[in-house]
């Protein structure tokens, strides 16, 4: 089912405009912050100005005296009413240490920006003003900021009751890397330093907790990616049963992992609402939003290679600075970085060691790519360096080492099972689209004029739809399809949308499976009261499992409609056609509405052949996921392995160090594009992340661990003008274990595009012998590298 023929009666495969896009574009969408209730109160949070300090005392008396202040809550009082936040992914599951995460600091603070107290007031500005009147007496300590220093034996533990600053240290090994390295023609070392950059949706986080007096329950309106799992967490924090908590996630203005839960403000707003018996709202400022960390890793990659470019072993000892402990799933991204080595490459000898370290920087949360983008950056930058040193074309070097398309399903050396793929086909398609060979000629011509053009390659393997055993990160999900007596359709899903358009993709699937028109379908998500128990959006899963489960449910409902239609038309049900809401059998026809109405109203007569109502709930549980450890204790948490190849063309202004991205080409394998516009939109977004991450976005701290980056003047994200023409191609290898071969398209692109850009800049600067692997490639950094190269090689005549 599904095709690319625009004249087809089927929707799958067509670039349908999103059904839910009109609201946000026209300003009519209702975001969390747009919800207000009678007696609405507003919260403002006092955050630690220090990276590490003991809290000696907190004096809230001046704040409490301010007219309009309803409640001031400190960590000490909060501990009486609420419990610590359970971890989204408990480190003990990966052999790690666990810290107690509280909504408000108790006794000491372990990072800049940590919530210390909160004020609730009649107006937002009163709460803000009152916070400035709280007096905290801190005993400031020297912070641990540098992960290398954090790992030293004499380092002070960030978590006071830990014996070291390691959350966990995990090896990912296979084969005989020692032998391969010692017998290699060459061993090429590359240190790749990926900096701290995060995700910054237009809509920051917001929670509005409403105490429902009648039922003594709480409704939390929130920017929440995973409503049901959050409800479970809040039940533990608030000491309330899950059935007394309702989470409603309305339209979301971008999430990218940031709105995965474990944030202190979720539980805080709920308990403040319970204590004040009034609705309490908190809207995150941009300054607060920038406190989230991600990606900061240092890789020491060694590639054992033959002279012909074949990679025989990979060694990588890498350290992740995950900041202070957090209940959000951020820290576990470092695990995925190691687990997805060596990406798309057929390297069997592996010696990778992850050290996940805590420091006094603010903690991580999930961010698009979920660690797999850093795998791509470490691998792609290292492989480019190897190709350069061996004098091999980097495209050829990659194609030589890719897993071949006839090797799937492929057992990776870390225990993963890759479903399908044609990696060299993907990359060659991207290269052809941008005219890779042609740019090599243009590059030479430009150099004669003193212009430095670079051509860079990146590839990214992005497993999607992940499931972690023993956590509410599940591989399956559930949908209900409900057709009313009037023939209109409601689809309720356990998956949610961060604004990516998956409701439209799911509606396209249901329209085809059910046989109705697309505009008769409404997709409802993000409400724990009405939607089936589900796991929300993460890991590019929503269309795979949301679409897969909705398709199953739609098929069952279709069977009922056909049966009743056959009875009404007095024909054999095998002769009944249902497409686009038209029911026919030979030259007979009947309206969909008439059949649906009959199901509800003639249950004891002609419609008695089916059980009313026209509703079905189904779960889709993709195969390939293996949670029973193999003989080496390894699991496969993913059912599908999306991948994408990138070619970036840049021009570097050697006087200023400024890089201009001229063009970028991407070929994407998402298994099957339900709606190409949606897939391309996701790729465009991910590439913009890659552009910002590789060139300008960077979160920095002073020597005392205070975060210096706190607005968009300092955290410079790309704007439309910075994003060049993006050439998009699809090269789909269907996944054999998912509905229609879907692989997911929500994440791939960040690491691949970032690596292509970095490799492109280094390629442009190769006449200077410059190789920058310390990211981001800001203009000053590029400029300094050129200056250094010129100083070291003054005889080299360039430009």
């Amino acid at each position, binding site marked *: 089912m599904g095709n690319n023929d625009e004249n087809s009666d089927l929707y799958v495969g067509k670039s349908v405009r999103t059904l839910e896009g009109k609201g946000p574009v026209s300003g009519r969408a209702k975001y969390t912050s747009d919800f207000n209730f009678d007696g609405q109160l507003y919260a403002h949070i006092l955050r630690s100005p220090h990276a590490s300090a003991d809290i000696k005392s907190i004096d809230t008396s001046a704040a409490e005296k*301010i007219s309009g202040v309803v409640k001031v809550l400190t960590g000490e009082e909060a501990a009486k009413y609420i419990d610590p936040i359970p971890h989204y992914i408990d480190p003990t599951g990966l052999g790690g240490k666990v810290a107690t995460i509280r909504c408000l600091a108790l006794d000491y603070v372990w990072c800049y920006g940590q919530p210390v107290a909160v004020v609730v007031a009649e107006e937002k*500005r*009163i709460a*803000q*003003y009152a916070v*400035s009147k709280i007096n905290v007496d801190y005993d400031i300590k020297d912070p641990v900021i540098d992960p290398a220093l954090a790992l030293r034996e004499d380092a002070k533990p960030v978590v006071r009751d830990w014996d070291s600053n390691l959350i966990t240290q995990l090896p990912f090994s296979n084969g005989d890397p020692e032998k391969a390295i010692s017998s290699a023609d060459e061993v090429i070392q590359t240190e790749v330093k990926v900096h701290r950059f995060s995700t910054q949706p237009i809509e920051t986080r917001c929670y509005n907790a409403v105490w429902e007096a009648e039922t003594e329950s709480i409704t939390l309106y929130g920017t929440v990616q995973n409503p049901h799992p959050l409800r479970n967490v809040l039940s533990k924090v608030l000491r309330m049963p899950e059935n007394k908590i309702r989470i409603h996630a309305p339209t979301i203005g971008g999430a990218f992992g940031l709105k995965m839960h474990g944030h202190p403000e979720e539980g805080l707003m709920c308990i403040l609402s319970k204590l004040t018996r009034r609705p309490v709202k908190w809207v995150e*400022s941009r*300054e607060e939003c920038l406190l989230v960390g991600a990606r900061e890793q240092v890789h020491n990659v060694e590639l054992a290679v033959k002279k012909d470019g074949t990679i025989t072993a990979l060694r990588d000892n890498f350290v992740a600075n995950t900041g202070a402990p957090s209940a959000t799933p951020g820290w576990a991204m470092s695990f995925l970085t190691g687990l997805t080595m060596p990406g798309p490459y057929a390297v069997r000898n592996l010696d990778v060691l992850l050290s996940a370290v805590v420091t006094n920087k603010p903690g991580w949360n999930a961010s698009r790519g979920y660690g797999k983008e850093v795998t791509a950056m470490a691998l792609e930058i290292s492989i480019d360096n190897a190709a350069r040193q061996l004098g091999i074309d980097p495209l050829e070097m990659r194609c030589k080492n890719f897993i071949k398309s006839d090797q799937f399903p492929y057992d990776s050396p870390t225990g993963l099972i890759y479903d399908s793929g044609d990696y060299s086909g993907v990359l060659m398609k991207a290269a052809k689209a941008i005219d890779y060979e042609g740019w090599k000629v243009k590059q030479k011509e430009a150099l004669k004029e003193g212009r430095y053009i670079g051509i860079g390659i990146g590839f990214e393997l992005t497993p999607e739809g992940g499931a972690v055993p023993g956590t509410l990160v599940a591989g399956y999900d559930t949908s209900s399809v409900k057709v009313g007596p009037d023939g209109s359709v409601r689809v309720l899903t356990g998956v949610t949308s961060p604004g990516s358009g998956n409701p439209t993709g799911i509606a396209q699937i249901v329209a085809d499976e059910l046989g109705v028109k697309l505009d008769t379908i409404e997709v409802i998500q993000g409400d724990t009261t009405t939607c089936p128990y589900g796991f929300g959006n993460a890991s590019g899963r929503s269309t795979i499992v949301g679409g897969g489960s909705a398709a199953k449910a739609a098929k069952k409902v279709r069977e009922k409609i056909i049966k009743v239609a056959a009875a009404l038309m007095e024909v054999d049900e095998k002769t009944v056609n249902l497409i686009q809401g038209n029911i026919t059998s030979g030259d007979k026809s009947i309206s969909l509405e008439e059949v649906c109405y009959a199901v509800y109203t003639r249950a004891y007569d002609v419609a008695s052949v089916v059980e009313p109502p026209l509703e079905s709930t189904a779960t889709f549980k993709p195969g390939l996921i293996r949670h029973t450890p193999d003989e080496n204790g390894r699991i496969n948490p993913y059912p599908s392995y999306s991948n994408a190849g990138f070619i970036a063309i840049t021009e570097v202004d050697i*006087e*200023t*160090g*400024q890089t201009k991205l001229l063009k970028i080409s991407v070929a994407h394998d998402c298994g099957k594009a339900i709606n190409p516009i949606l897939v391309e939109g996701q790729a465009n977004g991910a590439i913009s992340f890659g552009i910002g991450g590789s*060139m*300008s976005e*960077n979160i*920095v701290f002073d020597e005392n661990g205070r975060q*210096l*980056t706190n*607005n*968009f*003047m*300092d955290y*410079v*994200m*790309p*704007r*439309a*003008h*910075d994003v060049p023409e993006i050439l998009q191609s699809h090269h789909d290898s269907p996944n054999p274990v998912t509905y229609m071969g879907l692989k997911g398209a929500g994440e791939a692109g960040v690491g691949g595009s970032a690596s292509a850009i970095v490799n492109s800049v280094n390629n442009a600067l190769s006449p200077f012998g410059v190789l920058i692997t310390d990211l981001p490639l*800001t*203009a*000053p950094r590029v*400029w*300094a590298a050129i200056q250094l190269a010129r100083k070291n090689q003054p005889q080299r005549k360039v430009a």
Partner: protein
Amino acid sequence: MSLYPQFAKPNTTEQASQLLSGLSTGAVIIAGGQEIMPSVNYGHLMPSVYVDINSLKDLVGINFENNELSIGALTVHRDIQNNELVKEHVPLLSYAAQWVGGGWQVHNRGTIGGNIVSMHPLYDIIPSLLILDAEVEIISAAGTNRVSISDLLNDTSHGLGSKSILSKIIIKPMSKSLGWAYEKLKITSGGYGSANSAAIVETKNSKIISLRVSVGAVSPLPVDISSSLSSLIGNEWNDSLNDIITSKCSSLFDDALSDQQGDDQWRRSMASVMAIRSIKAALKKIE
């Protein structure tokens, strides 16, 4: 700092200066609001009194009289860009105003007066005004003063504080035979400028006979570097002048800024790169 600020909207400059002289330091003047409101929204600034000067007629309008162009302080960037008098008499300023950051909304609301009094090192208006030898008129309860823009920058006693109002900018028209340029180094379209330079040149028989150059966004305030480049006068442009400019600039910016867009060493080097680019672009205009 006040939770319940007051709002005043005087109708004349006289009323306004009287009012300001009687207010404490918690008062702020507000015109386009592009500088103040972000700080207020962030909670970094909680003024006790907002003095809205939008009703002051003396601060409105662009006029050309007695061979002087007078631009009211309330003139928004959009008008500086599009006004025919500004385009005709000081095309450099009109062009530089296009580079003001923040996009259309800021251009429509932000005023030239607000841009000047914020004295932000990275902004785009002052570098041009410096080499145009612009003057500004300042009104306070003590009377009306006219000072050069360079004095305003360099002499702290002219500091506007919260008691004075900048009313207009006065500029002599540029000769049509001059070449001019404004070059801005902006690493991404969303970022602030990292270095900029305005230049005005005059040539005779291809030789430079006068040269005015300023550099902004490198040091805490834009700098007029014309006197340091006097040795360029009398020369026809050639690549050896690059080295002279680079060498002169290298000693001019000991106080170079260091921020997240770039360290001081880079910024210092960018001063000469942008100066060279603006001079070359200005020369090209003459051709």
